[in-house]
């Protein structure tokens, strides 16, 4: 059995793209530990605990066991034959993390972090959530390990993601609606940080994406990199070679970095991240930080942010609540500037079309988040040769989104 430790301990050359972060938590100029003094000792403790856990085979064994028997890993690498025919170009494979327990890649990270919380002797878990997928995954692992769970969720998101709110409650989580600001993901993250700063002794904060103060970006990436590592070996088995292109959607960027990271040193593999263009990059209603933001400091890290000329953070917009965040994980900012990864965008309408196409051609209802990645695949696959291979991360399933999509297609499912 392959454990995460074996692959993640593969030496990487100094100064290579995959070597970050440095000792201070920086990927180039991005990342860092921009938090208040009250939290600083906590994240230093967390860093020490994570470094120890990484070296402990028992930690990796327990995680691997849970991946197999609780999550259902490895997730399949699936050749989408009908979609490939429909688009008429490159061969399209999906990494099917939407088949994971809880319906998305979020569980990969939550399991790793809950095991760490247990090791650290913490007794209370907090989390922020946007669409509710991370909140559900967190409430799930809290139920599995017997932790009380407080989830912070913007009041606006509580309204539009009612099924996930109910799921969290069923799982024993306590959902705290956040009314500050616009009541979306960034406000939920502020409120989770306020909880953490108040409950420093017993509380572990499970951040849901590869962002926040060091060590979170690196730690979440490591827990999600199982996606890319599995793809690598599955692709060798299926095709005997590496893919030509990887595509993933980005909100904070955890599913994307999980797919990309194991391939960063493989120069033949082109890597594309797809941000949410909402109603268009020329409007204010999008959340494409890397395409339309500039570097700044928020939520513990320096990264590309949507902000005005006075350094005030703007609200993101996307049809997909999971992409609706004005920042991005710092490693993506670094990969953008280095040019290793190309970051493009897809809008609400394109995502809706991709969503429907996948339902019809493959019998898979995707989440709206990876529908953005699929929208880009639809644009690019037809221009590629038949012997070229694209792997797209199908990071979440769309059950949660059928009401939203119904609304946009003029079908009201709530009455």
């Amino acid at each position: 059995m392959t454990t995460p430790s074996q692959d993640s301990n593969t030496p990487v050359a100094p100064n290579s793209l995959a070597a970050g972060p440095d000792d201070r938590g920086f990927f180039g100029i991005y990342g860092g530990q921009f938090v208040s003094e009250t939290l600083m000792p906590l994240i230093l403790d967390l860093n020490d605990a994570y470094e120890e856990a990484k070296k402990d085979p028992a930690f990796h064994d327990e995680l691997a066991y849970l991946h197999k028997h609780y999550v259902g890993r490895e997730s399949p690498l699936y050749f989408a034959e009908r979609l490939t025919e429909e688009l008429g170009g490159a061969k399209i494979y999906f990494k099917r993390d939407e088949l994971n327990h809880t319906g998305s890649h979020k569980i990969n990270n939550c399991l790793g972090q809950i095991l760490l919380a247990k090791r650290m002797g913490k007794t209370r878990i907090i989390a922020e959530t946007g669409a509710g997928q991370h909140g559900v995954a967190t409430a799930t692992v809290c139920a599995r390990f017997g932790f009380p769970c407080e989830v912070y969720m913007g009041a606006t998101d509580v309204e539009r993601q009612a099924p996930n709110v109910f799921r969290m409650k069923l799982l024993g989580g306590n959902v705290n609606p956040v009314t500050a600001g616009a009541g979306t993901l960034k406000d939920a993250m502020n409120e989770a940080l306020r909880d953490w700063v108040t409950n420093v002794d017993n509380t572990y904060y499970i951040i849901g994406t590869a962002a926040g103060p060091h060590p979170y970006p690196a730690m979440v990436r490591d827990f999600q990199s199982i996606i890319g590592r599995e793809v690598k070996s599955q692709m060798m088995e299926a095709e005997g070679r590496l893919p030509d292109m990887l595509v993933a959607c980005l909100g904070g960027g955890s599913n994307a970095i999980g797919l990309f990271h194991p391939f960063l040193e493989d120069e033949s593999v082109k890597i594309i991240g797809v941000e949410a263009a909402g109603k268009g990059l020329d409007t204010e209603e999008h959340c494409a930080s890397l395409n339309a933001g500039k570097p700044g400091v928020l939520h513990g890290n320096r990264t590309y942010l949507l902000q005005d000329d006075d350094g005030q953070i703007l609200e993101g917009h996307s049809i997909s609540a999971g992409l609706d965040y004005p920042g991005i994980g710092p490693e993506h900012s670094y990969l953008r500037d280095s040019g290793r990864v190309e970051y493009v965008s897809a809008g609400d309408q394109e995502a809706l079309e991709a969503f429907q196409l996948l339902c019809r051609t493959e019998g898979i209802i995707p989440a709206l988040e990876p529908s953005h990645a699929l929208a880009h695949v639809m644009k690019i696959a037809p221009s590629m040769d038949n012997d070229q291979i694209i792997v797209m991360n199908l990071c979440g399933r769309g059950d949660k989104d059928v009401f939203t999509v119904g609304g946009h297609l003029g079908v009201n499912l709530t009455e």
Partner: protein
Amino acid sequence: METTRIDTRFAACKAQNRPALVTFITAGDPDLDTSLAILKAMPKAGADVIELGMPFSDPMAEGVPIQLATQRALAAGQTMQKTLDMVRTFRQDDDETPLILMGYYNPIYSWGVDAFVKEAKEAGVDGLIVVDLPPEHDDELCLPARDQGLNFIRLATPTTKGKRLDQVLKNTSGFVYYVSVTGVTGSGALDADAVADAVSTIKDHTDLPVAVGFGVKTPEQAKAIGKNADGVVVGSVLVNAILDSLDEEGKASDGTITAVTSIIEGLAEGAKAAKA
């Protein structure tokens, strides 16, 4: 570094055997003109040192009172330029009261650090408190500010223990701001004995004055905390007074300025009695 207004004022208060009263408002709350009028009225009411909040859209370390103050200021159109201009106007009449800008790093980073510290100094700012810059990131702003002659005031908290305290104190100047509770601003119950112990520990590690804040609301608390501390910081109670004074449309009323100054007067009395 050179002596600043902050050093001079803490020394003067010490000579008078009383803690300095440090008062916070958010710049531009509830509007620019009212905020400037409150700022100008604060020294006469008894404020020894003034902290002026630079509003930021995502004030992670603030409780509800200062979050709301921030939202009021931003809704009224406050910008960093207007905040610096407020300081400039204040300095036309008052060249002695120390003035500290307090906030978060992003609006400063967005402005450009070198240009910001230069303009802040030139406007008459004496020090900076930037919540999300721990000593690990001293090269970002702390050192450039110090080179420009601005004090960089660091927060020490109940979680700042052992060797870390020395690290926190290393490049701090002006005074040390001891955060009396783990929590956000305006929260928690003050434990005067625990605070006294913490202040005494910090004083074993530095000659700088130690001011205590987060949760001081009443003259009695100012008196109790001021017994051991060199300064007492109040903020949430003042911005709450602004909130309570607003009219039905959320605009400043005739009573807004005195709502703040009358509380400061009471707190100043409490602080004066602290070491008696």
